[in-house]
């Protein structure tokens, strides 16, 4: 078994001979740490937080094993505690169970088979506990997001619906045709918002729960697709789209995530433009070299306030009322990049524009 995979065991005893004997008997199967006193044991624990099992002698000059376990219980709750003693002292047993929540009680001199079975049992218990701990953390995170989700649904889904409902009501006594047209335009916006929210939920779910499908990526092909999507916006809103792709080496990644990332960044770049600017432009630059894809999405739009830069990747965060949106897009981008071991950074100047830089390693 490789050294790394061995279960880490710590043994504390004031009798050096016991330590030597213990190490000699079990070092082939386990990674054994020994300590002559409790300060030394604490040093091991702080250096090796993944120690799974701790054996401790009960009668030591500085403190008892029970005292030691009681002390470390809250600082190092994960290692499994086993008390080792030559005295069958019922008081100590009671204390050990009640105060230091030990897993087992092994008598000295020990039988090797007892120690081995204790370590194996303790390790299984440790694994099960760690699993529960990890799952609990994941569950808590999922619950928190679900709460945010449920909350946002009332605003981001119900909001546009109620707006449309209100507009229908008002439309019944508006006779002025241009006014009605304005309203229809705004209703259309509401419907589009609702639709993009649903699209975002779909992306969110894909990123969270979906498996990555790693395949060969041709950036020219992906970019061409995005170009088609934004062609109309580009023409209608008079925003120039400049594209530059340099890919001389194969690149492997998850295509769906890549498309989602590009689409969100481009969509933001097109969305957050300065109204009166005569030379609106969006710049997409992709360089694939030495196993990394670097993507720049640059715009000369409204920019991001420095106070908001730290927040824009948070779920449901919106930095402006200028444009509609649920505050979902960049959250999904960041989440996808975490899965791809990628990174995103942003540089922005209010009124000057923003540059998003994404780097993704080849898979």
């Amino acid at each position, binding site marked *: 078994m490789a050294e790394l995979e061995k279960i880490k065991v710590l043994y504390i005893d004031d009798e050096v001979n016991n330590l030597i004997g213990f190490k000699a008997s079990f070092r082939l199967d386990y990674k054994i740490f020994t300590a002559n006193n409790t300060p030394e044991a604490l040093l091991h624990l702080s250096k090796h937080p993944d120690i799974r099992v701790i054996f401790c002698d009960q009668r030591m000059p500085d403190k008892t094993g029970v005292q030691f376990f009681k002390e470390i219980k809250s600082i190092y709750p994960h290692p499994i505690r086993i008390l080792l003693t030559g005295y069958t002292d019922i008081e100590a047993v009671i204390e050990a169970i009640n105060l230091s929540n030990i897993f087992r009680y092994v008598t000295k001199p020990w039988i090797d088979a007892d120690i081995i079975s204790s370590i194996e049992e303790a390790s299984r218990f440790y694994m099960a506990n760690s699993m529960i701990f990890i799952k609990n953390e994941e569950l808590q995170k999922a619950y928190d997001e679900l709460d945010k989700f449920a909350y946002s649904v009332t605003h981001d889904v119900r909001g546009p619906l109620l707006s449309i409902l209100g507009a229908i009501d*008002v439309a019944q006594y508006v006779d002025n045709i241009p006014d009605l047209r304005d309203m229809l335009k705004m209703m259309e916006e509401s419907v589009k918002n609702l639709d993009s929210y649903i699209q975002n939920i779909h992306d969110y779910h894909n990123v969270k729960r979906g498996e990555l499908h790693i395949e060969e990526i041709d950036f020219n092909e992906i970019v061409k697709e995005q170009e088609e999507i934004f062609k109309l916006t580009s023409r209608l809103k008079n925003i120039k789209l400049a594209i530059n792709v340099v890919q001389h080496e194969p690149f492997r990644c998850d295509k769906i995530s890549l498309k989602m990332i590009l689409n969100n960044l481009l969509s933001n770049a097109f969305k957050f433009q300065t109204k009166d600017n005569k030379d609106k432009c969006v710049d997409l630059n992709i360089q694939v070299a030495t196993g990394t894809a670097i993507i720049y999405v640059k715009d000369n739009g409204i920019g991001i306030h420095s106070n908001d830069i730290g927040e824009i990747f948070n779920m449901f965060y919106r930095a402006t009322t200028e444009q509609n949106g649920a505050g979902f897009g960049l959250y999904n981008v960041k989440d996808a990049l975490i899965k791809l071991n990628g990174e995103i950074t942003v540089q922005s100047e209010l009124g000057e524009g923003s540059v998003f830089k994404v780097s993704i390693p080849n898979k």
Partner: protein
Amino acid sequence: MTARKRHFIVIDDNKLDCFIAEKIILNTGVSEKISVFDDARKALEYIREEIDFTPGSKLVILVDIQMPMMNGFEFVEAFESLPEETRNKFVVFMLTSSINQSDLNRISNYTSVLQLLNKPLSVVKLTSMMAVLS
């Protein structure tokens, strides 16, 4: 009962909702003036500086809850920290699409909020609001 015409301040980041509110207020014939803000911070600035109002006639604020940058709660908190003399010129109504109980509970803590109304605003709702006022 002669209804007094009032100055309305509508605060909502959603353009359509602002438009609806404006139309309804106009059509109900209860307003002498409507000011619309898509950013609560601008509205707050306006309220702080607004001195041009008819004595004895309170200005009516309609504020949405969920807005970016400054939401309805933050707006009301900022409003409540204004000097009493300024606050007395206004009545505050909150409008929301929220069905979230903790939002609703939170609103009941704000003494300056006269009523919470569900979106969308309608002639019937506005009329009953006005009835509360007079």
